[in-house]
């Protein structure tokens, strides 16, 4: 008996994207959390809403590229404002986050036939994952995953200390921009599955759960990859079985692992919080 025969193609596509993007987000997340960039990730995700609305306004059937481009624009705006003004990074991000959301909602409310899209993009929808999205996810995961693994050493050093990385010959400015670029592309492409509101959780929760159990960076990276994979897989399966929204299902699966890891670290690993 073929267990896949009863499963509908849209479910398989969503599952494929989830098991590919889950570990990728989780791996990026190890550095995102350590570099305190979780809010940054949240801001570029919300920036995507303005891109989606603009895409529809310009007549795109599939707003993927306008979405990615607008997220990149928001990321660039954060970096530019950070360098050229005295504003706090938090303030800049809050400004751009609310601005993008407001703009996106106004434009979507004006496009009468696209009002239903808002809900799909805010909370994620496995029905919206097309065959092209699967290929895009697989190619991206391979390319970005390979890049990340070759850059693990300079990235870890950059996270520990930008100054030390510079003295050790790392091109810190270039690597910072490359990291932001990769994070933006991955986050905005995960929106289909998780939705704008929840997409950052896939970047934050797996590394946090892994942090509870790990004793070094290598362990945290490996555990984070596994938890991202599990969260993506378990979430999409649960979403299909119980007909619940996919994004929240993936998040709840990751949170379940987080709770288990927290309890395990307190009970069995006897690991005090300070080490």
């Amino acid at each position, binding site marked *: 008996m073929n267990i896949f025969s009863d499963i509908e193609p849209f479910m398989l596509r969503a599952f494929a994207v989830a098991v590919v993007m889950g570990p990728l987000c989780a791996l990026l997340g190890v550095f995102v959390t350590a570099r305190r960039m979780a809010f940054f990730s949240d801001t570029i995700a919300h920036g995507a809403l303005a891109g989606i609305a603009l895409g529809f306004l310009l007549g795109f059937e599939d707003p993927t590229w306008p979405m990615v481009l607008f997220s990149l624009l928001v990321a660039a705006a954060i970096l530019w404002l950070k360098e050229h003004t005295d504003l706090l990074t938090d303030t800049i991000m809050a400004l751009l986050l609310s601005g993008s959301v407001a703009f996106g909602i106004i434009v979507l409310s004006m496009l009468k036939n696209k009002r239903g899209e808002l809900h799909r993009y805010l909370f994620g929808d496995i029905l919206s994952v097309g065959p092209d999205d699967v290929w895009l996810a697989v190619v991206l995961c391979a390319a970005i995953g390979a890049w990340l693994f070759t850059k693990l050493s300079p990235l870890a050093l950059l*996270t520990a200390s930008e100054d030390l990385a510079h003295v050790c010959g790392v091109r810190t400015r270039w690597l910072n921009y490359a990291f932001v670029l990769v994070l933006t592309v991955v986050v905005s492409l995960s929106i289909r599955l998780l939705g704008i509101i929840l997409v950052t959780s896939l970047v934050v929760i797996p590394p946090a759960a892994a942090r509870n159990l790990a*004793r070094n960076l*290598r362990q945290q990276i490996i555990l984070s990859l596994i938890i991202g994979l599990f969260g993506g897989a378990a979430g999409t399966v649960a979403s299909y079985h119980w007909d619940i929204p996919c994004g929240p299902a993936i998040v709840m699966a990751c949170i379940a692992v987080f709770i288990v890891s927290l309890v395990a670290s307190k009970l069995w690993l006897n690991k005090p919080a300070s080490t």
Partner: protein
Amino acid sequence: MTHTTCSHSAADIAVSVRDLRVTLGGQAILRGVNLHLHRGQLVALIGPNGSGKTTLLRAIVGLQKPDSGDVRIFGESDLKKALPRVGYVPQRLALDRSFILSVREFLALRLRETQHWFWHRKRDTDDRLRAAMAELGAESLLDRPIAALSGGQLQRVLIVFALLKNPDLLLLDEPTAGVDSPGEESFYDLIGEVHRKHKLTVVLVSHDLSMVYRHASWVYALNGVVCCEGSPEHVMNADSLKEAYGLNVTPYQHHGHSHGPGGGIVQ
């Protein structure tokens, strides 16, 4: 300006800085600094807060872009070529607790063996790291997360990190900033030992005048410009210190070495 000059050939110069000017936030921090650090010396940079000691060190390794001026390390003006010969110990690391990099992993990053480190541990790398840590008496810290170390432990690890590639020049920015006062003295002894054993040029930024007196072979007193330079005995005389610090400092002898006011630390 007080000068004690030595005649050395260009090949003896580890770092030469010419007319270095740096402005930070509209304030001129370095206003034309000139210095020539000779090879093999343990050089101390002293000066009050805001005198540009840290900025000078950062400008030497390219972390601070100068407005004008010229920096050469071992005669090389191209930093990319010079930096592999330099070990740098920053004042502190702003490490987040959530980043669980172990000391072993952190040190492996200096050896650029992360790819190997990630997939499998190489025995020779491990032996090298263990030996390097043992030299500074910090072997037991290898598997600790670096963010959980105390100030003194972290400084030792940072020095090991800086020494791993056998540099010819070691720059230390207030190495005792996070060390409790009883540990400070032994810490400077340790740096002196590293200096002798590795036969390298050491430049360190310090507030601690007693350390300068005991260990440094050459001292620069900085306050936007080089106020005076020379042997510790020469620079520690009241007039030149006064010029550097812009206040009246009377060093006094105590347990065989000199102190400024406030237990030897001038703030």
